[in-house]
């Protein structure tokens, strides 16, 4: 059974600092997603990572995937207040279409 673990679950950080959110998963997969959710809103797709070593960047966010370690990271560079949100990773089963989410990382960036 596919399990997805994110850590930390809550992160409070200063503007201008760097930090990384980790996403581990329990079974083989070739497809991992990162989403952002603002309070009271639905989820918005950030990145789709499809192969080992995949790296995607958008602004101050960079996501990477290591399928051998079953690990993805979301790195935040020089954080700004606008990045405050909850970030979810989601993993798709290799066989089948089930997509399982982590519990989310609530990111709070202090001005």
């Amino acid at each position, binding site marked *: 059974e596919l399990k997805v673990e994110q850590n930390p679950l809550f992160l409070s950080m200063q503007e201008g600092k760097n930090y990384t959110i980790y996403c581990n998963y329990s079974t083989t997969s070739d497809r991992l*997603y990162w*989403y952002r959710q603002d309070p009271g809103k*639905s*989820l918005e797709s950030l990145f*789709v990572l499809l192969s080992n070593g995949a790296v995607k960047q958008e602004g101050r966010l960079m996501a990477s995937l290591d399928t051998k370690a079953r690990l993805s990271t979301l790195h935040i560079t020089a954080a700004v207040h606008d990045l405050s949100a909850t970030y979810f990773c989601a993993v798709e089963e290799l066989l*089948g*279409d089930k*997509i399982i*989410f982590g*519990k989310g990382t609530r990111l709070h960036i202090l001005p």
Partner: protein
Amino acid sequence: DVKVTQSSRYLVKRTGEKVFLECVQDMDHENMFWYRQDPGLGLRLIYFSYDVKMKEKGDIPEGYSVSREKKERFSLILESASTNQTSMYLCASSRFRESRSPLHFGNGTRLTVT
């Protein structure tokens, strides 16, 4: 732009009632999903469907059923609502697996069962 529409933003029902949550997508997506979101638990998959009249159980299907009679519509049914089904319900859709597309989410239905 993909649009996933959930019929109700807020819903209040009584224990024991039969509840229908409707979801419609306008982009001819093959796959549709129902999740519930609870504080501290993230999103948990209830059911999903990869084709009309097809359904697959997710991780927490107990107390729920689904219906997919048309490609664009995926309904979640609570046969006899209970207070532990009070939650935010999120519908999502995506293209077939080989398209490598992410999920597109609706705005959610906040269901309260009293």
